[in-house]
């Protein structure tokens, strides 16, 4: 059978269909898969985990490629729906925060307890003394003496590379290079392990250097090196092991893949800082309680003492203010008590008022702690006026003074001199208008009275004056003029009530003597003549001087003198002749005296009819006795000079 000729193209197509129908089917299926989005997603989902795993094994390229997208989406998500992250992170962050806060509180409480204990205990005082003695700080001494142990530094060290991943310390001043210390710690471990040929798994667990111990706490990829001061308890090791376990839980992957970048481990710092724990020596609870009570009682006692002192001070202050207010001449306008510093008092003060500092001392306050500020003023109350008077006139013991509505009342026994001054000056004092002394009994000092007399009259050398019981006794001799003045005025002087005058009047005595001499003189005449007999001249010649003396002394005692010249004649002859003769004889003498310069008006010649009565001792003969002229001094009060 011959087959009809067919188009070669058709034949080829037929052949391809026969040979490749399965592959074509598969190809179509693949095409469908690629164009069908859903199927493509399913395919990728099935291979993605494996692909990511392989990519990570090759390197960080996938992580690096994904990081920006992942970070961006996290930031975006936190901004839009933070609550999701809060809920997600709460189970992790919550316990960490609680643990951290609790630890901080525990440390604070412990520190406070220690401060209290160390401040009030004998041991505390002893440590304080040790600090002074050794020049260390108190805190350092306390730490050294009370510390049981303290984890001072923690190194987180990568096991493989010996590089330091994180270093935390309780003392920020520690400046040793943690990287090199970490390296050397690893080297020492290697050294120990190699030196004693122990297995790879065995390790140096701890070593001691002085007060320090270093504990090595191994982990799978990293280990902790804890630098501890003091004597840590065994229980510390499990705690540190828990810490290194936590580190591995949180950063296990990063530790395994560590390639030198330690910054990713910075987030472990809080965890490591929690492991920086310390324990201090505890005292018995009873002791603490007793001490606390002692402290409380001490504080209470101090508070009570302070309160008592404060109350006492307050009471004294009140008393002081009361005293100030009671004091005349002081007016308090403002007073403030300073509890811890200077107190203040302001007001007005009269010059006569007493010193307020003295009043403060009386009230048992220290005046140095009071700031006084006084303005001057004039107090017119009776007490102030009286004080002002007393300050100016010191009042005698027996004298009493009072101020009554401006009147100074003086009573009691008052010395005259003091009173005299008061009379003159008292009203010069502000507040005193007048002086009343009617009730006063004035006493005089005799000597002062005598001095007053002396000052008034000018005591003569010849006169002696004595005052006793108000009586002025004068003795001696004095001129008539002085005597008259003294007699007239002596009793007007204060302190002299009467005068006992026993003074001789010198002028009177001189007058009396002259008068006696003149009146005992005789001038004799010749018989029946008015011629003066020889023996009569002698008398006549002495007469003018004596008359002048007499006139002078009479003037001193206030008298005018007229000299009566008495002419006598004997009985022989007639009466008429004798009368004439008597007159002529008197005239003869007058003429003589006029010729001597005497005023005729002061001479009075008289013929005396009666015979002359001889005076006892007259030596003249009876005849002679009648032929004479005799004299009589007649006085009358002196007429004042025109």
């Amino acid at each position, binding site marked *: 059978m011959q087959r009809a000729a067919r188009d070669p193209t058709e034949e080829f197509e037929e052949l391809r269909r026969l040979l490749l129908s399965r592959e074509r089917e598969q190809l179509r299926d693949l095409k469908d898969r690629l164009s069908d989005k859903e199927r493509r997603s399913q395919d990728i989902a099935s291979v993605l985990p494996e692909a990511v795993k392989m990519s990570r094994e090759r*390197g960080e390229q996938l992580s690096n490629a994904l990081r920006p997208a992942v970070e961006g989406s996290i930031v975006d998500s936190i901004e839009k729906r933070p609550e999701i992250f809060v809920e997600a992170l709460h189970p992790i962050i919550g316990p960490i925060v609680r643990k951290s806060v609790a630890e901080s509180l525990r440390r604070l409480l412990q520190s406070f307890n220690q401060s209290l204990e160390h401040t009030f205990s004998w041991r505390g005082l002893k440590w304080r003394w040790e600090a002074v003695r050794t020049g260390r700080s108190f805190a350092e001494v306390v730490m050294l003496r009370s510390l049981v142990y303290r984890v001072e530094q923690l190194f987180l060290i*990568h*096991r*493989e*590379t*010996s*590089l*330091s991943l994180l270093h935390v310390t309780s003392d920020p001043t520690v400046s*040793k*290079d943690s*990287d*090199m*210390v970490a*390296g*050397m710690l690893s*080297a*020492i471990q*290697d*050294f120990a*392990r*190699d030196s004693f040929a122990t297995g790879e798994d065995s390790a140096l667990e701890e070593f001691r250097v002085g007060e320090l111990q270093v504990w090595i706490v191994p982990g799978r990829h990293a280990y902790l090196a804890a630098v501890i001061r003091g004597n840590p308890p065994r229980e510390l090791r499990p705690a540190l092991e828990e810490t290194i376990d936590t580190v591995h839980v949180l950063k296990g992957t990063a530790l395994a893949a560590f*390639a*030198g*970048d*330690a*910054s990713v481990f910075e987030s472990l710092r809080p965890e490591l800082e929690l492991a920086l724990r310390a324990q201090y020596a505890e005292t018995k609870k009873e002791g603490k309680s007793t001490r606390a009570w002692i402290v409380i009682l001490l504080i209470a006692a101090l508070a009570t003492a302070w309160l008592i002192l404060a109350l006492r001070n307050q009471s004294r202050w009140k008393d002081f203010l009361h005293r100030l207010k009671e004091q005349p001449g002081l007016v308090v306008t403002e007073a403030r008590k300073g509890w811890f510093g200077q107190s203040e008092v302001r007001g007005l003060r009269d010059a006569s008022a007493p010193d307020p500092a003295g009043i403060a001392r009386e009230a048992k306050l220290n005046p140095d702690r009071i700031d006084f500020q006084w303005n001057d003023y004039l107090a017119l109350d009776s007490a102030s006026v009286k004080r002002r008077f007393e300050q100016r006139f010191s009042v005698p013991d027996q004298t009493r003074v009072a101020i009554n509505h401006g009147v100074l009342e003086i009573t009691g026994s008052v010395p005259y001199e003091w009173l005299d001054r008061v009379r003159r000056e008292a009203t010069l004092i502000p507040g005193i208008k007048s002086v009343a002394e009617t009730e006063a009994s004035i006493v005089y000092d005799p000597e002062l009275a005598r001095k007053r007399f002396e000052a008034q009259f000018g005591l003569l050398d010849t006169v002696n004056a004595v005052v006793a019981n108000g009586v002025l006794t004068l003795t001696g001799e004095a001129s008539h003029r002085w005597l008259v003045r003294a007699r007239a005025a002596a009793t007007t002087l204060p302190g002299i009530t009467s005068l006992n005058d026993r003074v001789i009047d010198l002028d009177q005595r001189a007058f009396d003597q002259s008068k006696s001499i003149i009146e005992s003189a005789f001038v004799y005449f010749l018989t029946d003549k008015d011629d003066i007999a020889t023996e009569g001249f002698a008398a006549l010649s002495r007469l003018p001087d004596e008359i002048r003396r007499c006139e002078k002394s009479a003037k001193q005692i206030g008298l005018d003198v007229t000299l009566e010249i008495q002419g006598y004649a004997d009985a022989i002859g007639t009466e008429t002749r004798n009368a004439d003769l008597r007159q002529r004889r008197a005239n003869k003498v007058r003429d003589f005296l006029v010729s001597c310069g005497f005023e005729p008006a002061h001479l009075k010649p008289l013929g005396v009819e009666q015979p002359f009565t001889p005076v006892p001792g007259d030596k003249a003969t009876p005849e002679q006795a009648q032929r004479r002229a005799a004299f009589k001094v007649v006085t009358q009060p002196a007429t004042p000079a025109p």
Partner: protein
Amino acid sequence: MIQKKICMIGASGVGKTSLISKFVHSMFSDKYLTTVGVKIDKKTVAVDGAEVMLMIWDLEGDDDYQRLQTSYLRGSSGYLLVADGTRQITLDQAIEIQGRVTAAIGPVPFLLALNKADLVSQWEIDQSRVDDLTARGWKSFKTSAKEGAGVEEAFVELSRQMIQPP
């Protein structure tokens, strides 16, 4: 900052300690070398704008009396193999030590430092030997602890190799 542990390795007296002493912050005394067998120093170098902190473990010289303590090598990201240019034998020793190090910690970046480059007149190491090593992929630097030449460069180059992605 990235940290890397490196070691200074070489025969006794090649100048390992001298090489670093002028360039690092020292905290431990050289006494550690003879007691513990290692002294650790630190140096920060800048590599292409990034800072790398090198923890330099200066290991005690390897000789007949004191074998290299390979436990100190653990975790090293690289090492500086030091030989004394004036003593041919120290290069041989370095090559031998490199083998032991690789066996202990695997292939990590390292550099060969031919030290005492300032002593030109006493130089013993044949350049052809160095070229052979270069052909094997070794990188070498001539350094002088006395003059400071080449040291910084060596540390920087080693750091660069250590932080390069594999």
